[in-house]
Structure formats: structure tokens, C-alpha cells
């Protein structure tokens, strides 16, 4: 083609030649009729949708290399679509009143940065703004799978897992002006992400778009919208760092809960020792710890000496978080368990002692067996003593 173009047009008919490899099966074999390992794209579309197939095909490729067709990658592409769908549905629900009309929103047409944005608003707008620059750069270099991965992370992690959680309380709050801002940012964030995802998943993004509040022309297709452009006005470095610290703290508390096997519903208290600019970050974002990590009370301390006894701790950059064990442990349940254990051990002691008091058993049984029983008795007696000692301590905590 190139030589025909040069001969007749005097220039190359293309500027770029993108070379992609074959789609292979999960074992890396070429798909072929004779092997019977071909997968019919139409069947996949029927079961998973075209968007999931497209996303799966793109996320696995790098230019010039073959890719493998794996069902788990397809499932994960569909799960992603599903996650976006549910998050969008939740968002729309929260924007509408009982009649399904959109509630009032702040007017960001002069630039979102001019609104009374909260830290988390600045953070999500700035994060999306960064992603716009990166994804555009990837596409410019034909790095389609990197671009796909970034938009996936942005939607799944930053938006669904974090922003929606962070903003929830405000949507149900009492500050009417702030509610309008929160709604505006939710819609703007979702719209920008739909634009970024559209080339990869055109159907689901167009469908969601059609339910979102539109300025002006309500019939307009998402596919005709303008690609987002990076803007310096939406770069909020400070808030990005602040929210990163807040999210690290929330993660740390979740980890502590998991280690202590404490249910998410248990209310905790936290003692925080922070320095540097992180000290300010933690103070500014402590309400997230309360709302999202279910921390009832937060105490900021200035030195290690103030750390209470019996705590679990997490260390982050310039931040130490301490959670008292008293909060983590469920003493009522513990007392219950101790009492049950006491009854069981008393039974064991009685049974073992009874055996050893039987002169016939001691005389007839082999010495090793008798010794084993004696050891058992000593062990049970020891465990029982510890439990008896512990019960009044826990009883005191329950009261």
C-alpha cells in the first residue's frame, strides 16, 4: 500500500503503521478452526456485552505482541462495567428528588475551581485532571492498554471506592449550599470519567450519559462531546497530598480492625501523634475517620509519653495511629467465651483426675500412658488457673 500511495500520490498514504499481534487462546495457541479453540466474538458479546469484550481485548495488548484470550480477564472487564453502572446509578439517585427531578446544583460554568470546594472535591478533580494528561499522553503514543488501565483505576479506586464514600455524608447533610457543590462535583467527575472511558467502552458510557443532567442540548451524544483537557486551574497538589494521608489513615485503621478481628460496626477511639504538614492534614480530615472508619473519638497528642497502655498501632509517614485494645476487643463476648472455657476445662480436669485416682488404671496401664495422663492433668489445671484469674479482669471491663 505504501508503495502504491507513493507512486500515485507522491506521499505515504499513512503516517503510522500500528502492528498488533494475534489473539491466542488461554494456552497461547493460535485460534483456528482445525484446533476448535476459536472463540466466537458474537457469542462473547451476547453473554458479556461488547464493552467488556473490547475492554478485555485492549487491556491485554501491547503493540506488536500476541495476546491471550482469558475468561477471567473478560469477567473482570464485566465486573468493572458493573461497578461503574452501580456507582452511576447511586450517583443519579442521590441527585434526584422523590419525583426523579434533578435537585439544584452549583453552577461551575465559570470554572469548578471558583466554587466553595471541599478538600475531597479538589482532590478528585485534581486526580481526574492528572489522569486526563496521562491518558492523553498514552493514547498519543498508541499505548492503548496503559490508557485503559489508568481509566480503570481512576473509576474503580478513586471514584467508586473513595470519592463516593467521602462525599456521602455531605449529600445527606444540612448545609444546602454545600450539597449543591457536592452534587456538582459528583456529576462533573462522573462526566469527565465517562468521556475518558468512552472510546474504550462506548455503549455503557453513552447509556449512563443519557441519564445525567445536561446543560443545553439534552439530545447530544457523549460520543460527540469534547475530550477533557488538562487545566492548571484544577491542579490541587496540597489537597492531593492531604487526601492521600487521610486515605492512608483510614486504611491503617481498617487493617488494625482486621488484625484484631473487630467488626466494622464496633466504634473505636484513636489517638494520633502527627508531625510536619501531616499534622494539619490529619486534623483537617479527621471527620473522614469518623464517617468512614467508624472512629468515634480522636485525640491528638504531642509526644509518645501520652500513648495509652495496651494499644494496637500503625505507622505512616509523620503519622502514628494508636487504637486502644479496650475498644477493639468485645469484652462481653470475651467473658462469655471465658466462662464456657472454664466449664470445659473443669470437666477435663475432673475426668483426667478420676482416671489417675483409679488404682487399677495406674497399676495396669503402661507407664508411658499413665505419664501422658499426668501431663494432661497438669496442663488443664494450668489453663484453668489462668482463666479463673482473667475472668474478674474482663468482668470489670464489661461493667
Amino acid at each position: 500500500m505504501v508503495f502504491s500511495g507513493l507512486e500515485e500520490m507522491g506521499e505515504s498514504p499513512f503516517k503510522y503503521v500500528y502492528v498488533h499481534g494475534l489473539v491466542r487462546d488461554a494456552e497461547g495457541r493460535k485460534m483456528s478452526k482445525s484446533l476448535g479453540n476459536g472463540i466466537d466474538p458474537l457469542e462473547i458479546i451476547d453473554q458479556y456485552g461488547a464493552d467488556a469484550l473490547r475492554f478485555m481485548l485492549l487491556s491485554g495488548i501491547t503493540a506488536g505482541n500476541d495476546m491471550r484470550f482469558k475468561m477471567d480477564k473478560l469477567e473482570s472487564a464485566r465486573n468493572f462495567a458493573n461497578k461503574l453502572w452501580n456507582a452511576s446509578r447511586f450517583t443519579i439517585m442521590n441527585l434526584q428528588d422523590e419525583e426523579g427531578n434533578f435537585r439544584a446544583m452549583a453552577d461551575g460554568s465559570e470554572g469548578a475551581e471558583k466554587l466553595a470546594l471541599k478538600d475531597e472535591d479538589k482532590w478528585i478533580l485534581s486526580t481526574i485532571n492528572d489522569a486526563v494528561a496521562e491518558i492523553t499522553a498514552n493514547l498519543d503514543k498508541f499505548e492503548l492498554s496503559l490508557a485503559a488501565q489508568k481509566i480503570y483505576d481512576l473509576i474503580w479506586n478513586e471514584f467508586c471506592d473513595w470519592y463516593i464514600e467521602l462525599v456521602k455524608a455531605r449529600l445527606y447533610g444540612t448545609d444546602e449550599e454545600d450539597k449543591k457543590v457536592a452534587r456538582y462535583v459528583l456529576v462533573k467527575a462522573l462526566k469527565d470519567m465517562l468521556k475518558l472511558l468512552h472510546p474504550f467502552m462506548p455503549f455503557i458510557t453513552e447509556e449512563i450519559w443519557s441519564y445525567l443532567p445536561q446543560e443545553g442540548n439534552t439530545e447530544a451524544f457523549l460520543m460527540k462531546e469534547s475530550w477533557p483537557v488538562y487545566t492548571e486551574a484544577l491542579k490541587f497538589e496540597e489537597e492531593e497530598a492531604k487526601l492521600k494521608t487521610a486515605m492512608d489513615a483510614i486504611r491503617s485503621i481498617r487493617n488494625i480492625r482486621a488484625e484484631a478481628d473487630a467488626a466494622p460496626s464496633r466504634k473505636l477511639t484513636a489517638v494520633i501523634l502527627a508531625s510536619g504538614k501531616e499534622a494539619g492534614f490529619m486534623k483537617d480530615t479527621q471527620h473522614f475517620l469518623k464517617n468512614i472508619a467508624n472512629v468515634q473519638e480522636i485525640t491528638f497528642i504531642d509526644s509518645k509519653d501520652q500513648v495509652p497502655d495496651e494499644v494496637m498501632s500503625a505507622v505512616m509517614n509523620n503519622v502514628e495511629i494508636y487504637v486502644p485494645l479496650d475498644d477493639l476487643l468485645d469484652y462481653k463476648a470475651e467473658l462469655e467465651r471465658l466462662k464456657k472455657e472454664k466449664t470445659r476445662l473443669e470437666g477435663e480436669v475432673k475426668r483426667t483426675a478420676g482416671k489417675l485416682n483409679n488404682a487399677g488404671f495406674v497399676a495396669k496401664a503402661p507407664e508411658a500412658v499413665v505419664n501422658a495422663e499426668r501431663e494432661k492433668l497438669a496442663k488443664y489445671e494450668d489453663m484453668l488457673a489462668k482463666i479463673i484469674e482473667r475472668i474478674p479482669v474482663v468482668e470489670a471491663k464489661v461493667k
Partner: protein
Amino acid sequence: MEKNLAKTYSPKDFEDRIYQSWEENKAFHAEVDENKKPFTIVMPPPNITGQLHMGHALDQTLQDVLTRWKRMQGYSALWLPGTDHASIATEVKVVEKIRAEEGKSKEDLGREEFLKRAWAWKEEFGGRINKQIRKLGSSCDWDRERFTMDEGCNKAVVEHFIRLYNKGLIYKGNRIINWCPVCGTSLSDAEVEHEDKPGKYWYFRYPAADGGEGIVVATSRPETMFGDVAIAVHPSDERYKDMVGTNVILPLVGREIPIIADQYPDPEKGTGAVKITPSHDPNDFEVGQRHNLEQLCCINPDATMTDMAGKYAGMDRYECRKAWVKDLEEAGYLVQIEEKVIPSGECYRCHNVIEPMISDQWFVAMEELAKPAIEVAKNGELTHVPDRFEKIYLHWLEEIRDWCTSRQLWWGHRIPAYYCDKCGEMVVAAEMPEVCPKCGDTHFHQDEDVLDTWFSSALWPFSTLGWPEKTKDL
């Protein structure tokens, strides 16, 4: 309308509806817009015989992501769809259909009637793949859908052919080509699939004409020996230095052939001496050209043996091989048999072993055409992604042989060459000439062959935009 999304994500419920709405609203349509930069992808046209497979799905998705992204970036983005007439693939299908339904061959029907059936087949099945492409969400401009055999493309092909011919870049000649004996047509190098298969090398002794020992030569295709015209050795090969210029006898046939010195034989391979059969091997053909050797054809286009094969004439190539090897062995000429993996060239349509053959065909002279194509890659006007493919591209162009572009088929662009019924004078023209420039006769017949599919797909990027007319789309 519902005011919120359905409770569960069910793509089946909306994907087709959305595509239809895009299409009805002409959302994919692109017009030349002075205020916008153009971005164009011309879809590599899928074959009309095709069924969407995973490779297409990936291909389509890549093109669609780029088109949608550029469109959103404000480019006048055009993705131009179409289908390829797929000369040989379609002809095979239509021939099969006629045979199954009517028990007739294409010759029974004649060219005109056969082409009618082929067009009917195209109307019925040709659009299938484009319906499937829509399912993927491809945002191509269906208003501009093209077909490699539509009027515009046909015009472009004829024009391009004539221009190349007038520049001397297309010529007709007897050259060695790839021949599929089953499909009954020539194939370009790109249409031959290479695969390594277990095979044998037979070592035969060609006794010296003066009664001496002679020379031992290995071959994987003994049936071509009837076309041998020389034995070649490397000029630096000490073993054979004294024998160059002497003659050996082709075993059992009795014909004397010379031992010649040429750069082609590899002293490290086999015995270092190779038989030269210009009619049935492309390398031997080149050696033959250099040494002005005769061309003796011993295999027919239908893979039976010619009269050159003496008592084996009329036998199938492989039957002949068996009988011939047996006879040579009994006569004491077989020295050894070596089991070896042998590169084998197969027809990409029917997977039968192709037979290199000298045949009167049309060729495109590639050397001249390749030069600027090499140049644009080297000077950066053309970029490969990833760039390591540039090497492959350059190697391919630097090694490229003249491209055999005529096919002994009916479904395709018929070659615009006309022969005078009376004197045989050939005229290359867009229309049938009225008067023979040589003898003044007024009766002509058109070349029977068609051009291979690649000839029209090579023009696709601009024939679809209106070339050879000067359109604003270009």
C-alpha cells in the same frame, strides 16, 4: 423515559439500541471541515467471505478507540469501512456452491454467467461481516461504505495498472511463479504459507560423461530431475574444482549436463553440489538466467508429468516420484536417504503444496516502487508502532522480488490488456481498442486473467476517497 439506569447492568438491553440511535442520527458521518484537522482510518477491508473472528474484534476495537478519541479531540474523524472482494476465496466458495447445487463447473456456466452468480453471492452473504462489526460498536461512516470491486475502485485499479504499465513498471513475461495445481492459479509470494515438514533428501549419483565417478547430488523433489540442465558447485569448493566444465549424465535419462560454478550452492550443505532445474525452482531460475541455461518443463499445471518425463509422462507428481526413485535405486544410482525437516510452501487457500513453475504472467517491477517506500520509513514520514517492525518492513522491501499479480480466476478486476484477434498485438487500455495499431483489424479479446486482490487493496486508502478523481476528501 425512566429517570435512572436499570437496576442491573445488562448490556444486551441497550447496546443494539444505542448503536442504532448513533447510526440513525448520522453520528459517525464525517464531512470535510475546513476548521477541523482531518483524521482518517481506512479500514483494512475484511473479506466478503469472512465471519467475524477474534482477530477482527481486536482490529476493530483498536481502530474504533483511536477514531472515537480523535473525534472527541475535535478532529474531523473519518473511519471508512468496506469489504474486499477476496478474489480467490470468493471464487472457491462460489464454485463449491454451484457444484453442490447444480453439479456444474464454472466452465460449464461460462465466464459471464459465473460472474452473475458471484455477484448474487456477494449480495446475499457479503454484508454479513459488516453487521457483525456493528455489534462491536465500530463508529465507521457507513454512508461511505466501499467495495474493492465497486465502480470507483475498479476505475482506480485500471488507471493504476495503465500508469504503471506505461512507466514500464508492469510487464508480461515468462518467469518463475508459485503455482497452486489444485486452485489452478498463480500465487504471489505473500499468498504462499511456509511450514517446516518432515521429509526426505535423496542422494543420487550423476556419473561422469567420460566414465568417471561423477558427482553426488541431494534433492527433496526427485521428480524435477527430468528438468535438470546443470549441476552447480561453489567456485571455491576444492572438492569439485577440477570437475567444473566437464559433463555428467542424468541417470537413466542419459542426457548430458554440464557442471558449472556459481555463488548459489552452499558448500556446507549436502554434498555442496546442487542440481539446477530452472523451470521448477526460483533459485535455479536465477542461476539459469546467469548462465544462459535452457528451461525444461517436466511438470504440468495440473501437477502431472510432461513428456519430458519419458515413460512417467501423465503420472501425478508424487506417483512419479515413487516410481522414479524405485527405478533409480534398482539401477544403483541411489546413494543414501536422509530424513530431514524440509521447508514446504503451501497454497494459503487449499493448503496443497505449491509448485514453482515458469509461466506467462503479469508482474509488477518492485525495485523502483520499493525505493521511495524505504525512504519514507527511513526519514520518519512513516512510523511503525512498535518501531522494531520497521526493520521487518525494510527487510521485506529490500529483498522484494517482482510481484506476480495475474491470477487465473474470473472473480476480480480483469486485466485491462487486449489482444488483436488477427495479429496478436497487445494494447493496454481502459477500454477495448477499436482499431489494431499494427494491422488495422477491429477485433480484440481481453486478457483472461484477473488481478490479485492485493492490487486493489493496495490502492484502497485513496481509491476509497475518490482517486483518480481529484476530490476534496483526498
